[in-house]
């Protein structure tokens, strides 16, 4: 009767002590955070006496993981962006067009003349003067197709060609679109991450969400607009041949060309060739610099193949104008003075120093493969976060004390046992949150407060059961034993159902709601553990020492 094996007791106390140790760093939040930051800096930038001193603020043998504070507590910016995956289709088609032209050109005797027709961006429409040759044209174009390289699209080709009368339509196949969307989002994610890293903010969260969305959370940044300036720009840089310069935005550019505005001369439009000579992808470096007149500019360097193409083009086109285009706006359009070998150059324009620095960052990090559309943005000021933390702290302490006093008044010594368990419970929640790197949000604090209220429930169930057994005339030991075993099924059923809702909240929720689900779920686990193991061990240890003839619960 009333026995727990020694190893079980040791295990239970061990779990509690581990939980307390893991939770401890959170009691010294600022100090541990500084120590952790300094430790990272030492690895990244080398050891200095100051950094070492900060690291030593917290003993290295102690656990040092902290609970992450959510944006609503720490302040920062949150952005949900949708990648416009369709952008890529048009670029793919434009890139494909020269290939199509080259493969059809030798067959003019069977096809007659062919010409690209204006149509949707994501298709190539070709008009062929001899419709009899259509089957040959289809055959040739289909020969350009390559198999899709993705698991789901295995076996299908990347482009589809179809004929309608004398019109030949080329577009990406469904499987290729899916594969391309996935690639686009993954690339965008990578680029966004690189750009944010370049700026050097701490602990950003950059996650893919759903099929084509990216969630970006950066703590400590002043506003979401600031963040948008860094990641919102596509930064597609191209070096394109200029066809003409004019002032008409609606001028007919002709097939294969497009009209783009000038960045700093209002009312000036350039007609440029759609297929660029070199793009930003060929850049290996970009640095802010000053031009010969002392104005801010950006120095860049091409990789070998980019340098060769750029060199060849400049050699062949001395005397003609040439446009440096950033996101469909002409930054500058110098006239080629001489052959430019070596593959480096300078972009000049009406930049401020800040703009040239930003542009260099963007060019180094690479261009986004497609534009981003911002669906959701939230900025929480650090003051508001601090206010919430302060209010949450006070509320939690008051709630805690109220429950502790109430439990003691209601159950006496057993109430004290339950209270010790409750304190351990909170420590365990924080310990586990630190361990799994969970995030504490404002609703999460509410979840903890709710757990404080509900954690006593399991103990109450047991204590009420023990009372009933005592009333039924059983001895103290037997009553305690029965109380625990009979209350168990109610405790498990009640907590499993609540746990189910916590899991659903976690799966469907986002941000703060998810934070709430985590603390609620952890709270359920720890409260069941403390109620059926910890208070039990305490009661049994007390009972063994005192051997009371009667007990009062």
């Amino acid at each position, binding site marked *: 009767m009333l026995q727990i094996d020694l190893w079980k007791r040791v295990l239970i106390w061990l779990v509690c002590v581990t939980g307390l140790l893991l939770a401890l760093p959170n009691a010294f939040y600022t100090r541990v955070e500084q120590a952790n930051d300094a430790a990272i800096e030492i690895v990244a930038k080398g050891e200095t006496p100051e950094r070492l001193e900060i690291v030593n603020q917290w003993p290295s043998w102690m656990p040092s993981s902290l609970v992450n504070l959510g944006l609503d507590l720490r302040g920062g910016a949150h952005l949900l962006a949708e990648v416009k995956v369709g952008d890529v289709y048009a670029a793919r088609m434009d890139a494909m067009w020269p290939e199509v032209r080259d493969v059809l050109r030798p067959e003019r005797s069977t096809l007659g003349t062919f010409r690209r027709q204006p149509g949707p961006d994501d298709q190539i429409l070709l008009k062929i003067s001899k419709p009899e040759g259509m089957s040959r044209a289809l055959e040739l174009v289909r020969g350009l197709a390559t198999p899709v390289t993705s698991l789901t699209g295995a076996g299908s080709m990347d482009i589809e060609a179809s004929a309608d009368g004398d019109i030949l339509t080329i577009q990406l196949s469904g499987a290729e679109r899916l594969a391309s969307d996935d690639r686009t989002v993954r690339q965008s994610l990578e680029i966004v991450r690189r750009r944010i890293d370049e700026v050097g903010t701490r602990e950003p969260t950059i996650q893919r969400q759903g099929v084509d969305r990216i969630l970006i959370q950066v703590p400590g940044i002043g506003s979401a607009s600031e963040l948008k300036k860094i990641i919102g720009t596509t930064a597609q840089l191209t070096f394109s041949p200029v066809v003409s310069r004019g002032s008409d935005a609606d001028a007919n550019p002709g097939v294969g060309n497009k009209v783009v505005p000038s960045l700093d001369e209002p009312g000036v439009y350039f007609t440029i060739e759609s297929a660029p000579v070199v793009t930003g992808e060929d850049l290996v470096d970009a640095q802010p610099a000053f031009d010969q007149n002392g104005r801010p500019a950006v120095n860049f360097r091409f990789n070998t193949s980019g340098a060769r193409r750029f060199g060849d083009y400049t050699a062949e086109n001395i005397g003609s104008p040439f446009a440096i285009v950033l996101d469909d706006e002409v930054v500058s359009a110098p006239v080629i003075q001489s052959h430019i070998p070596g593959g480096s150059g300078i972009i000049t324009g009406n930049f401020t120093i800040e703009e040239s620095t930003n542009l260099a960052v963007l060019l180094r990090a690479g261009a986004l493969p497609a534009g981003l559309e911002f669906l959701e943005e939230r900025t929480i000021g650090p003051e508001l976060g601090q206010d919430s933390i302060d209010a949450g702290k006070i*509320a939690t302490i008051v709630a805690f004390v109220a429950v502790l006093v109430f439990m003691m008044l209601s159950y006496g010594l057993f109430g004290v046992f339950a209270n010790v368990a409750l304190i351990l419970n909170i420590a365990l929640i924080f310990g586990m949150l630190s361990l799994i790197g969970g995030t504490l949000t404002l609703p999460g604090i509410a979840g903890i407060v709710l757990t404080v209220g509900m954690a006593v429930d399991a103990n109450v169930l047991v204590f009420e059961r023990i009372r009933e057994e005592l009333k039924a005339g059983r001895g103290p030991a037997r009553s305690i034993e029965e109380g625990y075993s009979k209350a168990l099924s109610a405790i498990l059923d009640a907590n499993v159902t609540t746990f189910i809702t916590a899991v659903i909240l976690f799966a469907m929720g986002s941000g703060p709601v998810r934070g709430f689900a985590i603390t609620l779920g952890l709270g359920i686990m720890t409260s069941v553990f403390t109620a059926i193991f910890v208070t039990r061990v305490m009661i049994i240890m007390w009972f063994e020492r005192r051997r009371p003839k009667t007990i009062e619960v």
Partner: protein
Amino acid sequence: MRLKLVPAETSFDFFGKWKLWLGISALMMVVGLASFLYQGLNFGIDFRGGTTIRTESTQAVDVGAYRGAIDTLELGDVSITEVFDPTFEEDQHVAMIRIQAQADGEAISGEVIETIKTTLDTVAPGIKFVSVESVGPKVSGELVQTAVLAVVLAIAAVLIYIWLRFEWQFALGAVAALVHDVVLTIGVFSELQIKFDLAIIAALLTIVGYSLNDTVVVFDRVRENLRKYKKKTLAEVLNLSINETLSRTVMTSVTTLLALISLYVLGGDVIRGFVFAMIWGVIVGTYSSVFVASTILLYLGVKRDWSKPTNTTGNQFANIDA
């Protein structure tokens, strides 16, 4: 001397007026639904898109002046409310500005926010925007769907769990109580026009969990007593079970409410709506586990033969020992 909220021995008759209790519940549900259909919910930007700006200034908030300034920008429907809270400092004056979703499915642009700020600065110099949240209509539509789906899924999961652990009558009783709690909570949010946002959905699900917790404890005792007292009528067994667990029900509700009320008073205005929903839910959930779940169970009746081994699932964890 122990504090006892409920006498050690009670024998209240919970079912003598069961028609009255069910009637009251039904009436309240109808009022809640009618209010929901008639005046709807005061949806936050999570669910209908738009922008909220929380401003802070050292001078008193003049809603009229704020409005006059913002109206010049022609942003459509704008609502401005002053926020009061006992946790604020003396010279901390907070207002919430809500601006309707702008066209084109995107969140509001940074330039617009800057313009609003410079405009407001003319009427309230030194005004700070402590938080700006903007949700495009495209996302808010999806958030509504996910929220509804989450609540429905939670209720369905619970229905299945209780069905497996008890009998289908118990499951129906529990789910009726849950629906009752959810409807009454939505009703009170509609009636008082409290802002209904994503956090409230979290609160709703917690209420579902809490109410269920309560119901399951009562049902667990009912199952046990059905085996113990084979001769008693179902009504007697139910009554006995509720009386036996009454002390625990009240204790747990009181401790939870103690914690929640301190959060309501001291936790700041940002989560006040959320905490209000939970306080309401705890009260309604406690009520419903006795007066709705058990009454429905009584109405549906239950198979009394618990001797078959398949029905003793309630004992399968009883051997767990520390």
